[in-house]
């Protein structure tokens, strides 16, 4: 037996690309795998929501006010299905509403993070490449944005633009691009002093092709890490703003608004309307943070063994 096991564990030396090594290292952490699986399930459920849930919580025709505020596990009057997590004040099936709310949260979080990443990275590269007054102006703007608390800026922008999912996303983009810009600029400045950039320049490759084709790919790892953590922050902020009544419209509640609506019923011991949407929010954010933390460890060149 011993001989066999020694034979099978004989190390094989294969050339690994940085990405393969990253994937292998990511697998080393159980919590990160749990986070990733959770996240995939959440994204899948949210994406397939219309085919999974019992009712469309945003379609007023499908709601029955007589079914309002039923405790978890109650059967629906028509007997078609069970309200596993109860119903809210308008008679929505809470499970369906949570899954639809997750859709809004993920859409707002991922969408704003992607747009902010593209804009921020471009401006950061521009800042590093142009230098001079362009650099000074952009970086002072970044300093200004990052020095004020996010919630204050969000209140200011939403007081200015009004409510709505689109405006919340716009707010998030305005707040988030600065993180990517600062990181992309710093990374690009470091990378531009490397030998491979000199080599590319020596080959007569144009400045834009060097920036986009050579420097940008090497700036990506830290930007990906920021992206993951920013998605979690964006989802929390959207929920907070919706909770305060500054986010999504009342007819299409996101998780934050569901929690806010449940607040008034908590005093009469109907806890589930606020509890379950918050739990869904918490699980989503923890899953993203677990994956993000691991990505940071894996992609940080200073920690690579």
């Amino acid at each position, binding site marked *: 037996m011993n001989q066999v096991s020694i034979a099978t564990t004989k190390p094989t030396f294969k050339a690994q690309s940085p990405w393969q090594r990253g994937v292998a290292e990511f697998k080393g952490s159980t919590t990160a795998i749990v986070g990733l699986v959770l996240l995939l399930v959440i994204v899948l459920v949210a994406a397939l929501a219309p085919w999974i849930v019992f009712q469309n919580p945003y379609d007023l025709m499908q709601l029955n006010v007589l079914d309002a505020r039923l405790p978890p596990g109650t059967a629906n009057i028509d007997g078609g299905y069970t309200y596993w997590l109860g119903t809210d004040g308008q008679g929505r099936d809470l499970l369906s509403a949570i899954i639809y709310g997750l859709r809004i949260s993920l859409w707002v979080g991922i969408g704003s993070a992607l747009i902010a990443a593209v804009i921020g990275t471009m401006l950061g590269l521009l800042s590093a490449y142009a230098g001079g007054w362009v650099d000074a102006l952009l970086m002072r703007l970044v300093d*200004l944005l990052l*020095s*004020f*608390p996010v*919630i*204050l800026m969000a*209140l*200011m*922008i*939403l*007081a*200015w*633009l*009004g409510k709505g999912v689109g405006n919340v996303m716009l707010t998030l983009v305005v707040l988030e691009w600065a993180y990517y810009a600062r990181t992309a600029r710093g990374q690009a400045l470091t990378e531009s002093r490397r030998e491979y950039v000199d080599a590319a320049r020596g080959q007569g490759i144009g400045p834009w092709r060097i920036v986009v084709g050579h420097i940008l790919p090497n700036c990506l790892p830290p930007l990906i890490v920021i992206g993951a953590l920013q998605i*979690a922050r964006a989802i*929390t902020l959207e*929920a*907070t703003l919706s*909770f*305060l*009544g*500054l986010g999504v419209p009342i007819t299409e509640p996101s998780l*934050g608004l569901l*929690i806010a609506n*449940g*607040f008034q019923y*908590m*005093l009469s*011991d109907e*806890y589930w309307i*606020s*509890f379950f949407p*918050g739990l869904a*929010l*918490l699980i989503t*954010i*923890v899953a993203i*943070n677990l994956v993000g*933390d691991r990505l940071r460890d894996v992609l940080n060149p200073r920690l690579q063994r």
Partner: protein
Amino acid sequence: MIGWLVRRLSQSLLVVLLMTLVVFIGLNAIGNPMDILVGEDLNQSERLAAIAHLGLDKPLWQQYLLFLQGAVYGNLGQSFVYHEDAMRLIVQRLPATFELAFSAMLLAVVLGVPLGMFAGTYPDHPLSRLLMATSIIGFSLPAFWVALMMIMLFSIKLGWLPASGRGATRELFGVQWSFLTLDGLQHLILPALNLALFKISLVLRLTRAGVREVLPQEYVKFARAKGLSPIRVMCMHVMRNTMIPLVTVLAMELGSTIAYAVVTESIFAWPGAGKLILDSINMLDRPVVVAYLMVVVVIFVVLNLIVDGLYYFLDPRVRVEVKP
């Protein structure tokens, strides 16, 4: 020193001026406050008189200059809703917000520093691992949801603590404070703890990282070799060097605590400036929104200035000019 101060002060002034412009122009783009305030039943001439009374008929740049002129004297206009000086409204509510924010910071330090010292000294202790895992959840928890759960558990189910308002207050220096009465303190616990949750995690992690960085250094070993008691080494030698980054981060966090009090105040019906601003945004009460934003911006810029000053005095390395 004076050159540094002048440069830093003029930077701060520029930031404030820039923010007045952004705040003012931005808020002029929201819907016409006349529709909400005077209603439909006014005739045309009454409407125009009301607009003129509120100064909304002048061109935008003139409104801005008037606004700036007033701002220098602390006069940011009359509230459309309360018909009172907007600045006075904010200043009246600020002590309640400050009380909440300072209590939260105090909780963060009192709980975060000792726990962080423990986790830094014994990184492999099961309790330390538990603390670190809990602090990740502390970062991830949506604060407003935790607030609701706290109310449900401690106020509704257990009935230990009140969940809304400031309770009884007592006057000190001409201002009403909750922390001076037992009833007020009971009202303060839940909102302060809620606002502090994130800070406790932050302070814990910062202290832990600082302690772990300082502990292996030579002077700590030397202090131990001299035969000093572990407590003395911890308090006099380790903490002194851990405190510098901690103090600066805490000073910065105070500003964001005041801003995040908006959420906590609205849940616990704490009558501070944050609750006022939310109501004002919903009622399009422009002068109050502007006054609040300006006050918080100034608080923030002043805090930044103090932090930079602290760094200047505490850390000699900063004084070396780094020219780009």
